[in-house]
């Protein structure tokens, strides 16, 4: 089994190579086959790995599969092998990536049909899958980093897939660069690990931190584990679009919708969370980091949700929603609930991929129109898409028994437990409040998007309307499967206090070893715990439903939508305008970028061109030439002058000689 690990990333990579080199020649049929079969076959390998691991789990000796492929870098004390490691967490992640990924590949066959860059698209998508799997499977931080940057590259290429449009190319570049800023932190974290632990093997680093080796104070009163984990988190903020580096993700919607679904919702953006789970011991060793993560996560969740309230582009809504949900996941990590975070990664992959693909279906049907103000009433034309999209909406809104319900509830409970549990903390309480509020907002803006798209009067261009119909079968197939997952995926993590028949408690958390069991609690404590869990559950359900309710009241059927679009009170209007303008964060960053540019330009003109080149270099040359000119002037051409020079020279020499003589 071990030696099969390499096939998981290798198969998609081969797909990339074949499609990239020969795709153009062999036509779209060939490309579709290769492009879709690559992740599907890898999926089956991953299933094999998963089964192997779960069997081992069942036998009671939980282990991991490890394959050392070759030595990659080995200099001095530093070793980074090209080795793959599959433990339980990894195998689940691989399944999610390959499962959702395969569906999206299939979806793309229809979605991208007829595009000039068809082969290019599949090649990129395959390459992305390969890198994503490398990220997940890499047994050391550097190899993870290869995947980490590799997925960034694919994201860059795919965002700018339709590069003829200036904005797309810009968005791709923005994504890459913002990610690079995060990677900067990631790199430093790797350096710290190597310098202080002497290794970058993920497990070894984790063990070192678990043994408390990271406790030495390093700089500014923070210990090593805090620095490493904070720097990892910096990396994660880039990849997973958290404050302050979230700005690239909404722009990334410039890419084709399957890309948004796969990369910018289901997989790549969650790799920051995956990293945290993977390096859990490091994060657990540092309460400071966890607090920072909680704060950043909650704030991101809120900010993105607020922005999502007023977006009119269907994909932008989903993009901000993604940012917001990612914030949730980090909030969970900050609360120490790694299992909940990972659970949410999985369910989010299901329902957000579903939502994106649903929106893609709409967009495809609408001939690439994304503005919801030009939609409305589409449930007549696109009933199947509508149903699927609705399932996704209910899942994300946390309607009970849908996938999002379980994971979101677990997160909110983790916050609740920190805030009001046995050791109440006002810090946690504040951010718990924020995330509860966000849950309501989420439900609201999602239903708003449903309403604007599918309900009410049609605002579609009448010329366009007749041609709006359900897209091809692969799209339907993918939507159907994802809808199933979004409905039932939540049963992977049923909390133990909920008596749901036929379903084991907390399957995912147990399997991935991320959840802490309650084994050491007394009966009374367990009772109190369960009652707190109930309270939290009720609060979250209430909030979610009221969000839906308000949205239904404002945007529901029969309401004149546009009248409601204007909020009449001045403060409401201000909030609305801030929200519409995304709180001017982009403008704020732009200001710095422009300033940096201008400063660089000034430096170039003043220091490089003027000071160094003109004054110092050419100045020296001019001075030398000037001196030469002076000497030339002394050569006047007059014989008497020549003779005088001679005579004076001789005289001076004789005097010097005599003076020296006298000195002796």
């Amino acid at each position, binding site marked *: 089994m071990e030696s099969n690990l390499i096939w998981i990333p290798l198969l998609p990579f081969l797909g990339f190579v074949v499609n990239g080199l020969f795709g153009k020649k062999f036509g779209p049929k060939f490309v579709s086959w290769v492009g879709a079969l690559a992740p599907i076959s890898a999926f089956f390998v991953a299933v094999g790995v998963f089964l192997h691991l779960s069997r081992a789990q069942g036998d009671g000796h939980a282990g991991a599969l490890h394959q050392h492929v070759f030595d990659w870098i080995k200099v001095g004390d530093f070793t980074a092998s090209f080795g793959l490691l599959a433990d339980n967490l990894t195998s689940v992640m691989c399944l999610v990536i390959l499962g959702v990924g395969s569906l999206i590949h299939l979806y793309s066959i229809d979605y991208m049909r007829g595009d000039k860059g068809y082969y290019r698209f599949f090649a990129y998508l395959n390459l992305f899958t390969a890198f994503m799997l490398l990220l997940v499977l890499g047994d050391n931080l550097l190899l993870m980093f290869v995947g980490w940057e590799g997925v960034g590259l694919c994201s860059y290429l795919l965002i700018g897939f339709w590069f003829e449009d200036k904005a797309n190319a810009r968005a791709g570049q923005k994504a890459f660069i913002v990610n690079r800023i995060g990677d900067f932190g990631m790199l430093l974290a790797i350096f710290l690990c190597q310098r202080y632990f002497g290794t970058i093997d993920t497990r070894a680093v984790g063990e070192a931190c678990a043994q408390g080796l990271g406790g030495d104070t390093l700089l500014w009163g923070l210990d090593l584990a805090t620095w490493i984990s904070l720097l990892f988190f910096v990396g994660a903020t880039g990849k997973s679009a958290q404050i302050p580096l979230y700005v690239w993700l909404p722009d990334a919607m410039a890419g084709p919708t399957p890309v948004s679904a796969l990369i910018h919702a289901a997989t790549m953006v969650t790799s920051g969370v995956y990293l945290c789970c993977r390096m859990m011991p490091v994060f657990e060793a540092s309460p400071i980091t966890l607090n920072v993560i909680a704060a950043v996560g909650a704030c991101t969740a809120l900010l993105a949700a607020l922005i999502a309230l007023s977006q009119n582009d269907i994909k932008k809504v989903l993009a901000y929603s993604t940012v917001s949900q990612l914030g949730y996941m980090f909030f969970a990590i900050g609360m120490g609930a790694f299992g909940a975070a990972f659970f949410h990664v999985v369910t989010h992959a299901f329902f957000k991929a579903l939502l994106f693909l649903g929106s893609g279906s709409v967009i495809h049907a609408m001939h690439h129109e994304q503005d919801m103000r030009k939609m409305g009433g589409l449930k007549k034309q696109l009933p199947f898409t509508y149903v699927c999209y609705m399932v996704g909406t209910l899942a994300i809104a946390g309607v009970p028994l849908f996938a999002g319900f379980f994971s979101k509830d677990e997160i909110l409970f983790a916050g609740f437990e920190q805030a009001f549990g046995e050791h109440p903390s006002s810090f946690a309480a504040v951010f718990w409040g924020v995330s509860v509020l966000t849950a309501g907002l989420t439900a609201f803006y999602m239903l708003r998007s449903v309403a604007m798209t599918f309900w009410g009067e049609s605002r579609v261009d009448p010329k366009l309307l007749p041609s709006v119909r359900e897209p091809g079968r692969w799209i339907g197939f993918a939507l159907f499967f994802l809808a199933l997952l979004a409905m039932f995926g939540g049963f992977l993590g049923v909390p133990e206090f909920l008596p749901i028949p036929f379903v084991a408690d907390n399957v995912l958390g147990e399997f991935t070893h991320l959840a802490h069991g309650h084994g050491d609690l007394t009966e009374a404590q367990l009772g109190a715990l369960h009652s707190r869990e109930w309270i939290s559950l009720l609060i979250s359900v209430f909030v979610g439903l009221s969000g839906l309710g308000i949205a239904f009241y404002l945007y529901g059927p029969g309401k004149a939508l546009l009248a409601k679009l204007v909020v009449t009170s001045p403060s409401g209007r201000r909030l609305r305008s801030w929200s519409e303008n995304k709180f001017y964060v982009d403008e704020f960053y732009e200001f710095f970028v422009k300033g940096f540019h201008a400063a660089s330009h000034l430096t170039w003109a003043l220091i490089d061109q003027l000071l160094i080149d003109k004054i110092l270099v050419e100045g020296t040359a001019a001075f030398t030439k000037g001196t030469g000119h002076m000497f*030339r002037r002394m*050569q*006047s*051409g*007059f*014989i008497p002058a020549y*003779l005088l020079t001679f005579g004076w020279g001789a005289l001076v020499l004789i005097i010097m000689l005599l003076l020296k003589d006298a000195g002796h």
Partner: protein
Amino acid sequence: MFSLTACLYLSAFLFSVGIYGVLARRNILVILMSLELMLNAVNLALVAFGRAHAVAGAAGEHRGQVFAIMVLAVAAAEAAIGLSLLLLIWRKWRTIDVRDLCRMNG
């Protein structure tokens, strides 16, 4: 009658006059004469030294005098060249003022 020192002073005086003449005069002919004067001033010194050494009995082979005669010969050849150059200058430039000869400079 004359001491060596006196002769040397005379020689030095003549040499200086020669230098002055070369430096200060414009007329090429006069400059040539001044140059001759410089050489002959040295001749005087040579002869004086020779005589002094001979009197001192150091090496009485009159090397100074021989030297002076050689110098005279050389000076004659030099004058010949000088005058023919002067002729050339006159033909090409129509001047015998040294200050006019400054076409090349810098």
